[in-house]
């Protein structure tokens, strides 16, 4: 088991398997980075419409090929057909959301279900056309890499490379448009044309992915990597690269894993690897992850207890809240019997003065939004300027010590 897995990772599991792995890796990188742009344009689910809209094109291309006396299973021709109908689907989504009052999500849902329904009708027609011989077009629903022909594998790897090259070439324009359409226009980039290029790339990723992961799951490769990448960075450029990395990693790991055992279908495994990377991101990302948020919340909690406890000490009040007592004791500010230590008294005096300064500051800035609620828990020196504090101090008078 381990050895077959290692073989797959090192591209030794056979020529076709290696090509498929290369193809899914390239596709993953292209899908992740392309997906970032549509995600930032808040149109992630448009890829769902594009993907489902490929099906009737596959069916029609097959029927045309058979009518012309061909075999009907010519992969490049089927993919060309799928690209054509995906483009029609995309036009339909845009037409509905621009020309009628229906929102884009309704347009997406309508197009995806109707095109997909039409595709299924065509598949049943093909089934009756080719009695006795399986057309195998169902493979496009969930992808199928087992038993792929050699020249198909080469075609897919090459197409993946082409899409990736285009993404890299158009990266700058798409970043600008996704991030700031107004600025993009001012530096001479056409938003409409860039949007068009974005959609064309989405379509290309979808079409290349049809055979590998299938039309239902290719959507995952366009959406999950950018969402996961978003947790790691706030900068558009890094999100693009991280999403590409996550997409490529899932493409590579997924294809290798699925080549190592017989009943691990490529598409679902790639998507699940992708989801695992997403789960890691949402949990452990340094700023926006769950863990970080939890730690921040606890730190804030302790901070409030410490401040309130010190204020109570400064005013000579007894501290009743057990959490406050424990926070202060751990910081060495009070003794076991609740009496303030030397350090505690010094800190209390500082906090008391800070609190008085804030009282004055609130009076001065009563009508202004300078001070928000979070600020008053911070030392005033961090928020206001030295001159402002000097003015406040003039009103309060000199500092005073806390009696022990």
């Amino acid at each position, binding site marked *: 088991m381990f050895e077959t897995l290692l073989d797959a990772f090192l591209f030794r599991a056979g020529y076709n398997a290696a090509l498929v792995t290369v193809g899914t890796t390239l596709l993953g990188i292209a899908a992740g980075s392309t997906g970032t742009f549509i995600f930032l344009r808040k149109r992630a689910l448009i890829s769902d419409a594009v993907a489902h809209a490929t099906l009737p094109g596959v069916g029609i291309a097959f029927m045309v090929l058979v009518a012309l006396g061909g075999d009907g299973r010519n992969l490049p021709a089927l993919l060309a057909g799928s690209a054509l109908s995906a483009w029609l689907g995309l036009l339909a989504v845009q037409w509905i959301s621009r020309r009628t009052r229906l929102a884009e999500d309704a347009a997406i*849902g309508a197009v995806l*279900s109707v095109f997909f329904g*039409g595709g299924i009708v065509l598949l*049943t027609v093909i089934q009756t056309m080719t009695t006795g011989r399986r057309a195998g077009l169902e493979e496009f629903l969930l992808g199928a890499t087992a038993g792929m022909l050699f020249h198909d594998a080469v075609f897919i790897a090459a197409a993946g490379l082409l899409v990736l090259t285009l993404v890299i070439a158009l990266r700058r324009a798409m970043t600008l448009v996704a991030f700031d359409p107004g600025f993009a226009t001012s530096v001479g980039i056409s938003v409409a044309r860039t949007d068009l290029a974005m959609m064309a790339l989405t379509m290309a990723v979808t079409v290349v992915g049809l055979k590998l992961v299938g039309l239902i799951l290719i959507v995952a490769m366009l959406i999950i990597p950018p969402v996961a990448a978003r947790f790691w960075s706030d900068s558009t450029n890094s999100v693009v690269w991280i999403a590409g990395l996550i997409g490529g990693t899932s493409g590579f790991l997924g294809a290798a894993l699925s080549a190592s055992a017989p009943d691990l279908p490529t598409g679902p495994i790639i998507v699940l690897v992708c989801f695992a990377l997403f789960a890691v991101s949402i949990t452990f990302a340094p700023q926006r992850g769950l863990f970080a948020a939890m730690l921040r919340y606890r730190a804030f909690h302790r901070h409030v207890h410490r401040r309130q406890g010190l204020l109570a000490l400064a005013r000579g009040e007894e501290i009743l809240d057990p959490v406050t007592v424990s926070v202060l004791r751990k910081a060495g500010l009070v003794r076991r019997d609740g009496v303030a230590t030397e350090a505690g008294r010094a800190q209390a005096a500082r906090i008391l003065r800070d609190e008085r300064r804030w009282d004055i500051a609130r009076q001065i800035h009563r009508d202004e939004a300078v001070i928000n609620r979070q600020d008053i828990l911070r030392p005033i020196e961090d928020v206001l300027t030295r001159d402002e504090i000097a003015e406040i101090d003039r009103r309060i008078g000199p500092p005073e010590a806390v009696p022990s």
Partner: protein
Amino acid sequence: MTGSEFVQLSLVPLVIGVLAAIACALPGNFLLLRRQALIGDAISHVVLPGIVVGFLISGEVSTWPMLAGAAGSAVIAVVMIETVRRLGRIEPGAAMGVVFTSLFAFGVLLLEQSDTSGVHLDVEHALYGNLESLIWLDGTSWSALFDGAALANLPAELPRIAMVAAAVAVLTLIFWRPLKLSTFDEGYARTLGLPVSLIGFALVVVASVAAVAAFDAVGSIIVIAMFICPPAAARLMTDRLEHQVIWSVVFAAIAAIGGYVLAGYGPLWVGASNAVSAAGMIAVVAGAIMALACLFGPHRGTGQTVPQEDS
């Protein structure tokens, strides 16, 4: 085709199709107005892992465990979508995309890993259902409709979807006012003391139940089409919610009947000998209705161009 053949082969699928279409179109109206139209899409994907788990636990293709699994996974999906959306401050569409594709992939993997070769459970069946196979063997003539013994042998999907459709309709009627208020003006509804988020969640749950029941009978593709196309077409016909809901029910019924008839008899008219997928055809007819509404609906405009919007 004679009357008796019609009762035996086509009557039950037709009725089931219409009921499923209506059960989905009713909540679809509100989802559409709330910009949650794609919830139906998400739900119909995530029921797959649910039914597979239901099958694996019960060990047989019996309906109730699978329905329970489907409903459970729909609820899990909704909770997951909300979690991703809130925690990551991710836009709802992308959050949905992450969750439903992953769960669907998980369902496909489970299906491939488990030994389901001996039973009729596969992805294609889940996608386009088996409406045509829901025949009523005892329905040998119209008089069978009054024959208790024959009625007892109706396909079990029929009473199930009928129950769900009735429940959806009754719930829509009972909660009409709060639903309408919270859909159109959430702030105002909240000042009236309505539990706005609870209403939103309940709507999604009802939609899930409708989706799961319809999925069981007709497959997921009709579910998605019916959640969106009839309400969207109806929205272009009128400004009043009451009229919109009625239009959507009419459109859903026309799509179901028209699609079934075209799929079953259409190929015969053009000289072919085999019927095509009824589920696919119903979705196509729903799309055709919506296309007509987009082109000619009296209230199709975007608001700026159609003055009666203000009236």
